[in-house]
Structure formats: C-alpha cells, structure tokens
C-alpha cells in the first residue's frame, strides 16, 4: 500500500468519525434540558463538522479525482464509510449522549496530541488547530460524567446503563490495519495501542470518580467492522436523512 493511499484511508476514517458524530449531535438541537447544554452540544457538533470538512477536503485532494468534501459526505455509500460504530450509536437520553461523547473525546484528544508530532504537515496543522476545541469537549463531557454518575441514584443507574451499552464499541477505536502500519512507519500516525493505554487510564480515572464501573465485556465479539465497512442498523437511517437532498438533486449546487 502506498503512503498516499494509506493516508487517504486514514483521513476518511477520521473525517467520517467527525462527520457522523457531528450529525448525531445535530439531532439534539433545541431539545436539551437547558439552554447552556443546547449551546454546548451545538458547539461540539459544529467543531466536529468543521473537522470533517478539513479532513474530507484533504482526502478528496489526495484522491485527485476532482471531488469535494461534499462528494465524499453525500455521495458515498454506507459500505464506504469508515467511521467507528461508537459514533453511529443513537443519542438516547442526555446521559447516553454524554457517555458516547466522553469515550470518544478522550480518544480524539490523545490522537490529536499525537498528530501534533506528525511528520505530515496537514495532519500536524490540523491537530494543532483542533486540539483546543477537543480539549474543551473533553472537559465538558468529563464534568458531566462525574456530575451525572455521582448525582442521584436515578442518574447513576442511567449512566451505568449507558456505559454498559456503549462499552463494547470502544475496542474498535484501537484496531489497526495496514494503513496504520504504513503511516506509523513514516512517523505520521501513532501506534493506537499506545493511545489505548493512555485512554484506558484516563477513562478509568473519570469513571471511578463518577462512582461508576467499567463492565466486563471480554465476551463481546471483536467487530472488525470498520475495516470491512460494516455498520450498525442506525447508519442507514443517518445516511438517508443526511444524504437525501443532494442525492435527489445530484446536479444542484447548494
């Protein structure tokens, strides 16, 4: 695999994560429990969509077929999306959304931190710009994890349910493939197993502080889903909503 192809794959993966998570968060708009949270969730959504734009544009450039960020976002089929299943998961209640966000924020933060030392100029610049945003996301979701985990009996139970539901999707965040190998060799991306050690530790600290427990899910099927372009049953609905209009009018400009 050429370094260019590997980088394209990697950018798509990062871009799809940002896009689908931003899309999910966008569903919250106007429905949160208080204005401040409406603003916060919209803010995270906006940052993710912003990141998706940068990443998909760069992927389209690398691809060199004259496509744009919008081609990749709106005219790709489900099997060609390479996001992690975690970001597709339904919003559920505010607690479930926060849990999904927290598990992802810690991951994204440390990934960006590693990219800050990347040999690839785009990825480095991208990370330096984005890490400020994600630092805020991570502190937001961490605060809410603790507040809701250690709030009332009811909120504690809801948060534990959310962790139990979402935990099985976290393993996939650290799966590596040939693209990772090629790019690691070139000093462009980090070894995800190192990110995992940091992630494990940080997540455990917060979950402990939130008086919550990490479930034993050794039994869960290793999905390997992202590599094969497999998705949850949610993804089809996400895409039909997101892509319907551009797909219905393929020649229109917006």
């Amino acid at each position: 695999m050429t370094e260019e192809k590997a980088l394209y794959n990697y950018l798509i993966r990062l871009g799809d994560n940002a896009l689908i998570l931003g899309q999910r968060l966008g569903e919250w708009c106007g429905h949160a429990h208080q204005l401040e949270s409406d603003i916060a969730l919209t803010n995270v959504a906006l940052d993710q969509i912003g990141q998706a734009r940068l990443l998909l544009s760069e992927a389209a450039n690398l691809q060199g077929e004259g496509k744009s960020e919008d081609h990749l976002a709106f005219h790709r089929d489900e099997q060609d999306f390479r996001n992690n299943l975690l970001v597709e998961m339904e919003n559920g209640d505010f607690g479930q959304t926060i849990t999904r966000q927290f598990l992802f924020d810690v991951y994204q933060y440390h990934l960006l931190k590693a990219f800050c030392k990347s040999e690839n100029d785009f990825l480095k610049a991208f990370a330096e710009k984005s890490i400020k945003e994600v630092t805020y996301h991570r502190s937001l979701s961490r605060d809410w994890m603790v507040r809701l985990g250690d709030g009332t009996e009811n909120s504690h139970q809801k948060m534990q349910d959310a962790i139990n539901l979402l935990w099985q999707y976290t393993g996939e965040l650290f799966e590596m493939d040939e693209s990772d190998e090629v790019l690691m060799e070139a000093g462009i991306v980090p070894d995800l197993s190192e990110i995992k050690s940091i992630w494990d530790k940080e997540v455990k600290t917060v979950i402990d502080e939130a008086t919550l427990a990490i479930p034993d899910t050794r039994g869960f099927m290793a999905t390997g889903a992202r590599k094969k372009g497999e998705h949850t049953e949610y993804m089809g609905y996400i895409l039909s909503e997101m892509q319907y209009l551009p797909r219905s009018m393929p020649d229109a400009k917006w």
Partner: protein
Amino acid sequence: MTIEEREREFQEKIDSGQKIEPKEWMPDEYRRQLIRMIGQHAHSEIVGMLPEGNWITRAPSLRRKAVLLAKVQDEAGHGLYLYSAAETLGIDRQTMINQLITGKAKYSSIFNYPTTSWADMGAIGWLVDGAAIVNQTMLARGSYGPYSRAMVRICKEESFHNRQGYEIIYQLANGSEAQKKMAQDSLNRWWGPSMQMLGPSDADSTNSAVTMNWKIKVESNDTVRQRFIDRTVPQAHAAGLTIPDPDLKYNEETEHWEIGEIDWDEFYKVIKGYGPCNAKRMKARNEAEEQGKWVREAAAAYANKKSKKQEKQVA
C-alpha cells in the same frame, strides 16, 4: 416623593432620552410590559431553534450544515442574553420557562409554521430575521438599558444571519428548475406570516400606546413593517422571485411599496394556538423540560454533595 412625583420624574427621564437601569425606580406597569416583551422575545429565540433545527441533519452541504448549526447556536445565545435582561427586572428564568411551557407566555407566532424544504432555511434568514432586525433596530433605541444593549448585540448577529439567508434563497432562485421552484414555494409560504409578524396595525395593537409612551417601542408596527417591505421587495426582485401578493405596487409619490390586505384572521388564529405547528412546538419544549428533569436533579444533587464536602473540609 409621592408616586405621582416619581412617575413624573420617570416620564421626564424617558422624554429626555435617558436609559432606565435595573436598580432605578420604575412604574409597575413599565416593569410588567418589559418582562412580557423581553420574555416573549427570549421564548421566540428558543422556540425559533426548532424550525431551523429541523434541517440541521438534512442540510445539503457541509458548509451549509456548519452555518446553520452556528446560527441556531447564536439563537440559543440570544435566548440566554434575553433571559438575563429579563432577570434584571426581578423574574427568574425558570419562572419564564414555566410560563412558556404552560402556554401562559407567548412567542413569535411565525415559528408555528413548518419548515418543509431546505429553501425555508433561506426564507427564515431572509424574511423572518429580516423583519426581526428592523424591529430590533427600533427596540435598540428603547428606554430600558439592558434590553436596549441586548438588542444592539443581537442585531449584529442577526444581520449576519439575514445575509446568509438571502444568499441561500438567491442561490436557489438562480439554480436548477427544481431549486427555483423550491425558492418560490418557500417565499409563497413565508411571505404572509412575515407580514403578520410585526404585529397588528397601530389601531388594533393593544399595548402600543403605553409602550410607545415609555419608549419601550419607539415606532409603530406599521412604520416598522413598511421599512421591512421596502427593503425586502427589491431583494425578491433581484433574486428573480415573485412576491405572492397580487396587490403589491410601488407608489412613485411616497416612494414606498404598498401591499394588499394582511390576513389578520390567520394571525389571530395562530396566536390563539390553532396554527399548523403550535402543538408540535409546545410538545418539543415540554418534552425537553420533562426529559431533562433527571439531569437537572442530578446536577443539583452533585453540587449539593460538593458544597457539603467543602464545608466539611473548611470546618
């Protein structure tokens, strides 16, 4: 000082163009009118997030999606300033929100119309925000300091939204046949409600006399509406769109655009709760409150534990 003396002094301040600040004395009715208006205005920002929020997941490009997210976020921010401005008058946010979800307080009736196409994101920015700006620019000259300053700040952001909305409509109106149709259809649906949005004619407006006397409002609904019409009609024409009013004509003498009859019957029906989306909007706000209850309770419980712990550490 007798109450009459205070009222005279207050009116003199108003007449000389001074701003009234929170801690100063003011007549109860002045306070009541302001709380009503600022509350309605704040609620309008909040409810107004819903028709636009409805298209975030369906925006047809990533740029448009980002712009729309930012816009809705601004509206939530406006809601926050406005609730804060109202709080300077001695009412708290939760009380106002309760008034909203129980139907006691109103919000701008135009948000009871559905957003059924992407072009509506253009029409709302262009027409609804356009009408709002004309109104808010007038309100920024009003007598109550915190409200007037909030209006200045909000107006700046609204102008930005307004340009973005017009850009969406303009691009559609100059796009494919289907897009043109979409733009015109959207204008057809939003024009009437936009005309109604600035409120009944001066003769029929129950609060106008008192609010104008105290310079809460400094111009009449009809004056503001005319300014909006004169601004908007040429924009429609520039985009190649037709205003859905067969009686629309330009008066060379007055240099104003004159419109046909406004459907006040529709306006009052929607205000009374019978519009196409009143039930849907109220349901959304009520559900947000209800489904968010456990979160608010948990946050309070956590804060309580925290402060007890700190007390202990101090003791």
